[in-house]
Structure formats: structure tokens, C-alpha cells
């Protein structure tokens, strides 16, 4: 016995289109399907009927690439904690449920089509300083630079950010602070990241502001929806580095 669902999906044919919510019925959905597979079912039907399928971003479908993401019933990646949309399963929904599906909403993330947004703004934040300048060559010996276990753990936690953009989508201010802070924390905690620590924090924060993201007011909505659970104290670290660099 499959589930029957009513979907209200944002349809927008390109950036010049105004866009609107369109209602679709999807029948006989298996509770074992992922959310994206449920959309695949809808799209196959739409294609057979000669309609335009709903466009959405996806790639690995195993929760690690950061491509997928949509706001499901008002929550980025849906209400299931620490889960990307592709890893969200239909068993978390009731049979007969009405599900609202919208793209990430932020001026720096313009809609490309339907649920697909352009996240190049994140790439430009990384280009501004999310790297370390080292002589390229063969990989150094693993223990040639000692790293404290606590620092290594915290840096790794921050490095799990997949850049999906859920933090921006969930933030009432449309701020990209959690994303930017994750990158600043990841590199700033490691010895290899020290030489550029100040300039990195300054350049990345300034790029983030230039892209038109909002300011952080510490609501914590970002970390609550983050599929990787990037902690809020990365933002405190970013603020500390930025203030130090601005002196």
C-alpha cells in the first residue's frame, strides 16, 4: 500500500518568470522512497503526460555532495534533523499529507528554475580566502606538523560543511554566517591555516556582505537545520578572527 500525497511545488520557468505554487497529486508512494525519489515518481508522470518535469538539484543522493536541498513545509531539508533532502525518507510523512516544497529563498541565491538556485555566491566567498597557500608538491608526512587532538576534531567538524546553503535558507536574516564561519574555523584551527588567518577572515566576511547576505543575529536557526550539524560557535570564532583582523 503506497502513500497518497498532495504536493504544492514552486514552479518558475527561469529567472525572468514570476513563479507560482502548483499543486500535484502523487499516488502510491512507497514509505521507503527518499524525498527525491518521490519527486522522480512525479517527474516521470509529468514527462509521460508531456509536461515539464520539476527541476531540482541532486547528485550523490547519499547526503555528502551538498547539491540537493529544498524547503519542505517551511523547513530547510525538512523537519528531520541532520539530514539532507536526499536522505529524508517518505516514512516521516503521513499518508494523505500536504507538502509544500520551495527553493532556498535568498537574493544572493537567484532561482535558476523551479527548485534550483544558483549558489555561485558561496564559490565567490571561498575564492575570497577559503584556502591555504602552500607550495604544491607531494603530500607531506602525516605527522610532520603536529595538531592538537581537540583542534583537529573541531576543524574536522567544521570541514564537514557540504555548502548546501540550508543555513541561508533557514536564517530569518538570510545570512551566510554559518557557511562562512565553518570554512574560517576549519582552516583557522589548523597550523597550516595560521599565516593567512587574519586576511582570510576579513576577505571572506567582506565577500559575504558584498554578495548581499543578511547579518547574523544569533538566532541559531542555521545550525538547527544544518545536515552536518555545524556548531554555532564557529560563528563566534569567525567574529573573533574578524574583529582581530579589523583592529
Amino acid at each position, binding site marked *: 500500500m503506497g502513500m497518497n500525497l498532495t504536493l504544492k511545488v514552486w514552479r518558475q520557468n527561469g529567472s525572468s518568470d514570476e513563479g507560482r*505554487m502548483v499543486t500535484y497529486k502523487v499516488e502510491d508512494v512507497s514509505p521507503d522512497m527518499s524525498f527525491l525519489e518521490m519527486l522522480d515518481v512525479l517527474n516521470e508522470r509529468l514527462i509521460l503526460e508531456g509536461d515539464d518535469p520539476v527541476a531540482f538539484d541532486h547528485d550523490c543522493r547519499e547526503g555528502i555532495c551538498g547539491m540537493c536541498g529544498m524547503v519542505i513545509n517551511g523547513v530547510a531539508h525538512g523537519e528531520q534533523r541532520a539530514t539532507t533532502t536526499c536522505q529524508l525518507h517518505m516514512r516521516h510523512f503521513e499518508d494523505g499529507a500536504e507538502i509544500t516544497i520551495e527553493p532556498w529563498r535568498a537574493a544572493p541565491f537567484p532561482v535558476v528554475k523551479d527548485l534550483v538556485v544558483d549558489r555561485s555566491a558561496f564559490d565567490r566567498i571561498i575564492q575570497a580566502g577559503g584556502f591555504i597557500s602552500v607550495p604544491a608538491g607531494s603530500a607531506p608526512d602525516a605527522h610532520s606538523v603536529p595538531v592538537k587532538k581537540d583542534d583537529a576534531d573541531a576543524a574536522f567538524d567544521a570541514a564537514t560543511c557540504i555548502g548546501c546553503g540550508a543555513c541561508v535558507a533557514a536564517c530569518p536574516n538570510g545570512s551566510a554566517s554559518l557557511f562562512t564561519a565553518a570554512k574560517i574555523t576549519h582552516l583557522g584551527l589548523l597550523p597550516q591555516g595560521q599565516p593567512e588567518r587574519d586576511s582570510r577572515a576579513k576577505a571572506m566576511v567582506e565577500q559575504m556582505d558584498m554578495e548581499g547576505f*543578511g547579518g547574523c543575529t544569533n538566532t541559531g536557526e542555521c545550525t538547527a537545520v544544518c545536515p552536518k550539524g555545524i556548531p554555532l560557535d564557529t560563528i563566534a570564532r569567525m567574529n573573533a578572527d574578524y574583529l582581530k583582523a579589523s583592529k
Partner: protein
Amino acid sequence: MAVTGAILVLFLVGHMVGNLKSFFGADSFNHYAEWLRTVGSPAVPNRVLLTVVEIALVLAVALHMWSAVSLARRASKARPVKYAAKRKSQANGYATHTMRYGGVIIVLFVVWHLLDMTFGAVNPEGFDAEPYDRLVAGFDPSRWWVTLFYVVAMIMVGLHLRHGLWSAFQTLGLASGRSYGKLKAAAALVSLVLVVGFLAVPVGVMIGVIK
């Protein structure tokens, strides 16, 4: 937000402690009000230190509001198309989501409060009365709506500080994963003490302990 907020919190603590003098009788409260004007005398003329504090507070309020308005404007520019689905807080942050409208309620209250207790313009006893008489007349049971406004405003102040206090540490980069628990507990405690301290006086007038 953080720095100006911190200045205003320090003021609130002092203001609350001063208010509690009303429980020690008219002389104690009036004497305290007089002391605020004569402190530092004769080294500095009367009211000089008080005026300096007043100017600092007005500046802090103005800059705090300016920061809040800029943040709100940036936020609305960053999300020109709103979500269709109703969004509920995923971070259990009720207090957090009262900051903007709560701030507006608080500033409206401050305007009324100054007209009532400082300038006496809307106070039954008027400007020439002793501070203690203005206080008792201001919270007279016949003016229950003034007391109600006061109570609502103080609860808003409590919620504002519940988020604002730890948030200031976060903004200044002084918070960490390890200190969040302690910071949030301290923020809740300080907010509660301030709300209870500020509400004690109108309740005292209402039940006749202050008369």
C-alpha cells in the same frame, strides 16, 4: 548591538537597585533621587555626572536602534521573496524572535516612562512633586492600565535580555561551544532578576506595601 546593549544592561541593573529603595520609605527613595543629582559635588557641579550618563544612554539607545534597523533592512533585502509555508523556529528560540517587535514595545514604553516618572507630564502629581509621590501616584490602582503596560514592557525586556545577553558574547567572539550552557543560564538568571526586581515596585504599590 553588543556594545551598546551592554551599556544599557549596566544601566538597567543600577536603575533596578535604585528602584528597590522605594521599599525603604519616601525619605530613602527621595534621598537617592537627590544623590543622583549631587553625586561628585562639590568636585563637579550638581547634575554634571548625571547629564554625562544621560547623554551616554541616549547615544547608546540611538546606536542600538540604528544597528537594529540596519540589520532588519539587510534581512529584508536578503530575502525579497518570502516563503509560502509557515515557518516555525527549529532552534526553540522563542525569545530570539521577539527581538524586533519587542524592541519597538520597549522604546515606546521608555518614552511613556520618561513622560510619566521623569518629566511628570502624564503623571497625576506632575513635575514638581517629590519622586516618591510621583512613583506612588503613577502606579495607583486607578491607573491599572499604566501598571499593565509596565508589566508587559518588563516581560519584553526580560525576553530581550534572555537572547541579547548571551548573543552579545557570541557577537564579540567571546562565546564557545563549552561556554554556551553557562552563558545562556546566566542570561536567563540576570533577565529573571531584573524582571522580578523591576516588577516588585509596582506590585508593592498595588498591594499597599509602598504608599
